[in-house]
């Protein structure tokens, strides 16, 4: 790994001119991308970007602070519903509603963070699991939230600029994603980030060193929920429709799978994990249309399983990926990337 000699090297965004070059190229690619590819791919990238936000947010909590959460679908739902309802009922402008949605989610994150002060490991997992399920129940039963039927998201405009197509949405989502990733990356280099990491490594030691556990644990929950809430708000507009059934327990595990696949405690890993897994999710949604494999699976399901249930194969594959990664590569894609990098750097030794 590259050695960091002083603090200013550590907080530098990119440490060499070559990296700056690639960084600028990457941004240029992001800007030109939507003009080169068909619409469905733009939709796919939008979907990926939103999930990357969630993954980064969840990684702040799970990977950096070491607190597990099985209830992030709840924050996602809170963000989505608050944004839509604030715009529909109170006629907030979009950006204000989105950020308020994020803060409402953050508030709930703070609330959930309170019991987390006394809980750890399995107990925390159970409490957050309950939270996620409770949120879905409340939303599904309350008429304000559209009940089981869900809500249609209102028309989207920033100022007088109306956003309709996936391409316009792309620029909005990518900008927000970029800002949030940078914010997360910088946050981890500040005293707050270091406090999070020290809590993960040993909360008792952290407290002895003067880290205020109450403050930082609830803060980690709030920040993580804020990210997820913003992502939820964006998702409401990407899908154009939200209903309580889409924010279930399985979604929370999907989010956790994104983080695990990307690699715990790594922003770069989160980006990879979120993108790769979302891509996989969208591909597996239409598994019948894949060449060769699709036909084989169709005949297999007709013979032994049930054709109508075939899309559920995504859940099987996700489950297997989680298990295999935990067993064989606990650091996820990021760990794989680091090992490959070191291998080539030191080659042939």
């Amino acid at each position, binding site marked *: 790994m590259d050695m960091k000699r002083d603090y200013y090297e550590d907080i530098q965004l990119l440490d060499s001119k070559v990296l700056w070059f690639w960084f600028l190229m990457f941004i240029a690619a992001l800007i030109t991308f939507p003009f080169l590819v068909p619409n469905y791919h733009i939709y796919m990238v939008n979907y990926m970007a939103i999930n990357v936000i969630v993954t980064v947010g969840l990684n702040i909590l799970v990977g950096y602070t070491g607190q597990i959460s099985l209830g992030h679908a709840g924050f996602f739902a809170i963000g989505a519903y608050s944004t839509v309802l604030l715009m529909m009922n109170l006629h907030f402008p979009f950006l204000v509603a989105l950020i308020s949605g994020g803060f409402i989610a953050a508030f709930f994150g703070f609330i959930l963070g309170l019991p987390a002060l*006394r809980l750890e490991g399995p107990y925390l997992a159970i409490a957050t699991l309950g939270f996620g399920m409770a949120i879905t129940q409340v939303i599904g039963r309350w008429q304000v939230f559209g009940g089981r039927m869900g809500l249609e998201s209102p028309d989207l405009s920033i100022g007088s600029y109306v956003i309709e197509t996936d391409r316009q949405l792309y620029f909005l989502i990518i900008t927000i994603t970029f800002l949030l990733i940078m914010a997360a990356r910088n946050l981890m280099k500040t005293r707050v980030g270091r406090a999070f990491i020290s809590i993960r490594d040993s909360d008792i030691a952290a407290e002895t060193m003067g880290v205020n556990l109450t403050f930082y644990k609830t803060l980690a929950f709030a920040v993580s929920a804020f990210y997820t809430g913003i992502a939820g708000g964006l998702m409401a507009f990407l899908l154009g429709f939200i209903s309580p059934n889409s924010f279930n327990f399985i979604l929370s595990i999907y989010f956790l799978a994104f983080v*695990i696949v990307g690699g715990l405690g790594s922003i770069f890993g989160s980006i990879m994990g979120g993108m790769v897994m979302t891509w996989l999710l969208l591909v597996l949604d239409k598994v019948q249309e894949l060449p060769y494999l699709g036909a084989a699976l169709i005949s297999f399901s007709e013979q032994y399983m049930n054709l109508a249930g075939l899309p559920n194969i995504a859940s099987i594959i996700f489950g297997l990926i*989680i*298990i295999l990664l935990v067993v064989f590569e606990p650091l996820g894609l990021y760990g794989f990337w680091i090992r490959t990098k070191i291998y080539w750097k030191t080659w042939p030794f």
Partner: protein
Amino acid sequence: MFFQLIISGLSFGSIYALIALAMVIIYKTSEVPNFGQGEMAMISTFVAYTLLVTHGYSFFLSFAGALLFAAVLGVFLEFVFLRRAKDPNILSFILITLGFEMVLYGLASWKWGAEQCDFPFPVSDFDIINLGPAVISYLNVATLLITLFLMFVLFLFFKYTKVGIAMKATQQNAVAARINGIRTNRIMSLTWALSSMIGAVAGMMLAPIATLDPNLMLEPLLKGFAAAVLGGMTTLVGAALGGYILGIIENLFGGYVSLEFKSIVAFLIIVLVLCFKPSGLFARHYVRKV
């Protein structure tokens, strides 16, 4: 009204108690909350359903077949996945059970997700016994009796059989148990089998009340956790009592406060208990090792 709520609370409570027991048996041995518990029970119930309806075996044969399947499934999970974890900490165990949960959920929805299944239970839910101020259906009586019987068997098992005592020893101190010649690995597998079987019984008793689909156990799993937390994750008796208490509280809440938000009670109980008495109502206070 009040008695009626308590009686039906008891029969739901006994299902929660079984799930909680299954959970606690695992938790005590390996400190893993098994998030796959619900789906393991669900898929065993589907196996019973298939044997019963598609292949037309008798009820008791299907029941036994499903229990056997559940036991094999439990051993499989322990032997193939949990034992292979490279870096065995709590997070990775939780993740493995979650991954297993998703695999089973996907398999069940793939095979049975599309159709609505009615689980034919030989005891009817509509014939009732009059108890004065309240009525109770034959099915509820059967649920209560089966649960009590199962608990009694478990009690005998842990008290008088060699395997049961070895399990208790492993739960208390795995290293010491090993030194005394207990194959803790094998005991671990057996514990998973036992827990999975108890879960399967809970699933099969829930199926005639609820609809049998892949989501069958999602909420009951949460209730089971709530019951286990309420009674204490480290005591069997506590978990069983927690199940009954949860069933009654939930039903009273549904009857007197709000039927719509009945299922939030479980979550509230989890949070309140964890905030005020994290070790549960019936367990000794636990001390964390640094």
